[in-house]
């Protein structure tokens, strides 16, 4: 299986998504419009890896600008599982042992879905702990670089390398380093199951989650069910922001400065329109159109401004839950596998999947996928998530 859109170093043990810049190597974020774009510098996360002595094996295929369910919207090639169903190239590269770890940008939950589909671990840390310098931006207000690996120990090791303050990112938090652990005692922890998300998943997913809950309980953790009645509205709020920010961020790809330019144009309007029409897929265009609409004068207050207020509502609601619980557990997606489908459906299908993944992107809290389930923690509670994952993984040994 071809995981890589660009190979870099055969001896490397780390893969990075094609949304992270690696100096001197073509970076396209799954989009035709970035063909030929060779960055002049590397992402801060990549620099930290290299400084710590890791080598990058290659750049994994990603869905165009990360607006996919699991990599299927890439212009340059799609990775599938052995049975033909979909998963992300990064998760598959880790699952197959081709690399030990992979860095992925989580903007709509796709790397989390990939980890669930391929049976590996992925953490999206607290917003602002890993620098966003050097990632191809889609939705700056909620995207974050995360780590995919075969187990919680390896996730922790890489996350410790890439997290830390970066003055080149104005949203980077001040802490110079974060001390992560994966072996905190989880007995006595209180973990909440989100009723609305549990109910929305298919039975195959519910049984995976039930199974996981049994293991946590046997480690002495306590499980309770909580309700987040507005969780679907949170997903809509994030869809609105995600589309609006995408519209704004990818408007720079116009065939003038770098990347793809149409061969047929006679004036600047045709140069723009033909380059962008030919250079972007339908899902990217759909996000641009919707994002452009929600930012328009007539829609701004009722859509965009409303979503910014919903973000605070969601943030307060989750604070309330984390005041009494150490972590939240939920399905990572609605089903246990994704078959190929007509890509014209991507926007609506991903919107439906956002139900499960939105909250951590919307309000910046950490999320981890492990054993086919998803854990959320309060801001900076990565060690809690890593320790739950680690405890269950050690149980299996």
């Amino acid at each position, binding site marked *: 299986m071809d995981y890589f859109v660009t190979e870099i170093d055969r001896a490397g043990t780390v893969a990075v998504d094609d949304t992270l*810049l690696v100096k001197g190597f073509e970076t396209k*974020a799954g989009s035709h419009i970035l063909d030929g*774009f060779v*960055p*002049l*510098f590397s*992402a801060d996360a990549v620099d930290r890896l290299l400084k710590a002595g890791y080598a990058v094996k290659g750049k994994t295929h990603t869905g165009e600008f990360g607006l996919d369910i699991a990599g299927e919207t890439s212009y340059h090639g799609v990775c599938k599982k052995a049975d033909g169903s979909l998963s992300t190239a990064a998760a598959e590269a880790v699952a197959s042992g081709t690399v030990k770890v992979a860095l992925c940008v989580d903007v709509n939950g796709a790397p989390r879905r990939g980890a669930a589909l391929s049976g590996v671990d992925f953490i999206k840390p607290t917003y602002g702990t890993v620098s*966003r*310098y*050097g*990632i*191809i*931006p889609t939705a*700056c*207000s909620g995207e974050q670089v995360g780590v995919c690996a075969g187990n919680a120990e390896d996730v922790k090791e890489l996350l410790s390398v890439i997290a830390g303050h970066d*003055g*080149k*990112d*104005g*949203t980077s938090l001040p802490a110079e380093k974060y001390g992560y652990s994966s072996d905190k005692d989880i007995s006595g922890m209180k973990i909440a199951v989100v009723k609305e998300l549990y109910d929305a998943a298919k039975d195959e997913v519910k049984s995976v989650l039930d199974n996981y809950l049994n293991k946590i309980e046997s480690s002495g953790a306590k499980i309770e069910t909580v309700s987040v009645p507005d969780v679907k509205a949170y997903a809509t709020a994030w869809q609105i922001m995600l589309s*609006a*920010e995408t*519209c*704004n*961020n990818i*408007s*720079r790809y*116009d065939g*003038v*400065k*770098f990347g793809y330019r149409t061969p047929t144009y006679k004036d*600047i309007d045709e140069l*723009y329109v033909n380059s962008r029409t030919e250079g972007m897929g339908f899902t990217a265009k759909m996000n641009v159109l919707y994002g*452009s609409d929600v*930012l*328009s*004068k007539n829609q*701004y207050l009722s859509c*965009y401004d409303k979503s*910014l207020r919903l973000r605070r509502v969601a943030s307060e609601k989750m604070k309330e839950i984390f005041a009494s619980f150490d972590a939240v557990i939920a399905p990572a997606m609605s089903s246990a596998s994704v078959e190929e489908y007509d890509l014209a459906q991507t926007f609506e299908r991903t919107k439906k999947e956002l139900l499960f993944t939105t909250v951590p992107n919307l309000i910046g809290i950490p999320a981890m996928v492990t054993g086919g389930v998803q854990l959320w923690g309060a801001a900076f509670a990565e060690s809690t998530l890593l320790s739950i994952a680690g405890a269950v993984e050690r149980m299996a040994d």
Partner: protein
Amino acid sequence: MKYEVVIGLETHVELSTKSKIFCSCGGHSEADQPNDCVCPACCGMPGMLPVTNRHAVELAVQAGIMLNCKINQYATFDKKSYYYPDLPCAYQITQWFHPICTEGYVDVPTKHGTSRIGIKQIHMEEDAGKLVHDDWADVTYVDFNRTSVPLIEIVSKPDFRSAEEVLNYLDKLKSMFRFGSISECEEGAMRCDVNISIRPEGTEELGVRSEIKNMSSLTAIERAIKYEVARHIDALERHTEVLVQETRRWDDMKNRTFAMRNKETAADYRYFPDPNLMPIVVDDQWLAEIRKNMHATIGQKTAEYTGMGLSEQDIASLVSERTLCDIFDAVVASGRKPADTAAWILTDCAGILRRNGKVIGELDIAPEALSYIIGMVDEGKINRGVGKKVLSAVIEKGVSPEQYIKEQALDAKVDESAILDIVKNVIAENNKAVGDYLGGKTKALQSLFGCCMKQLKGKGDPAVIRELLEKEVEKLR
């Protein structure tokens, strides 16, 4: 019918920072060639993130203080989207929801007294790049040197009633900002959008407004206003056209305005808060610091210099240029007398510059050097003439005054016997002048004095020379 003109201005001023507002590239004034001051962010490449230049914020706040504005404690940056090849990201970072300053005013002098022009707001934003159109090759070249250079946009209220007020307002802003080191206000660094409408005198309701975009020359602004007013009056009285609210551009060659095509003006800019930039909170402590670090205004300097006893004319000359005040202040602070220092700068330095085809504003001298020369003269170690000679060398050749005086042995003490020898010599050689003097033409003594100075090569204390000369000549009576 008599009409009243109603004008509002949006004035863009480039701030004097070393680097751009959101990246570390130098300002475009540093650039020799197109795209000299450019980084991946300036040409729209993905991956770099904007981080605000603190000094740009401080300058914007200083401008707000100068224009009597309320400095907002909470300001944000927002994105404005539109396509044009000079805008590399297809968005401009500006302040739409929460500008840094609001509600101020400027008093503008006019022939009929002072007009107070209200300021609605001052907001910060990044500049766009520059396009150069090539007729021969039928292409447009894109230069991003100016991209992301920090600007403030000063939005006035529609308080102008004449072109004169507009021009005097712009002149006043220019001199205030130059003096306060807010902006160099060089050619093109101050650009205006002019909003014009007319209404029958005595009425309140505003007429149909046209906006003339991107004007930078004062004479063009004046002509454009005249043209627009005439066009509006024609439309109202002779029905030459139906006025619509629109954006127009001034064509300096054709001496008229043209409506801009719809696509450039009808855009929905889709403003939204920039998630990459955190809010700016100018709290009382920071505001106090900014005030403390502010250059004095022209008014404050004028009062200060009046207190020092300088003449009105000298004060006007000094405050015409920030750099002159800086040099003057430093020299006075080193202990030199104010009036004397002003004379050295405005007479001696100015004369030397004039001889070199320059103006006083171009004076570039270390205050320590000027203070040293004045000190040497004051202490009688060199005479004033030698002082001027040293000053010329310092200004023209950039030498150190101390070293120059030493090298040329200008401060060598000339003892009285040596002076006496020369004086006797001069008297012996200039019988006619001596005769004239003794015959009652007292002026003849001056020419004898000149000869002495010449032979002494400018050295020696002039008072001593004059005294000895007079004594020796009188002996011949």
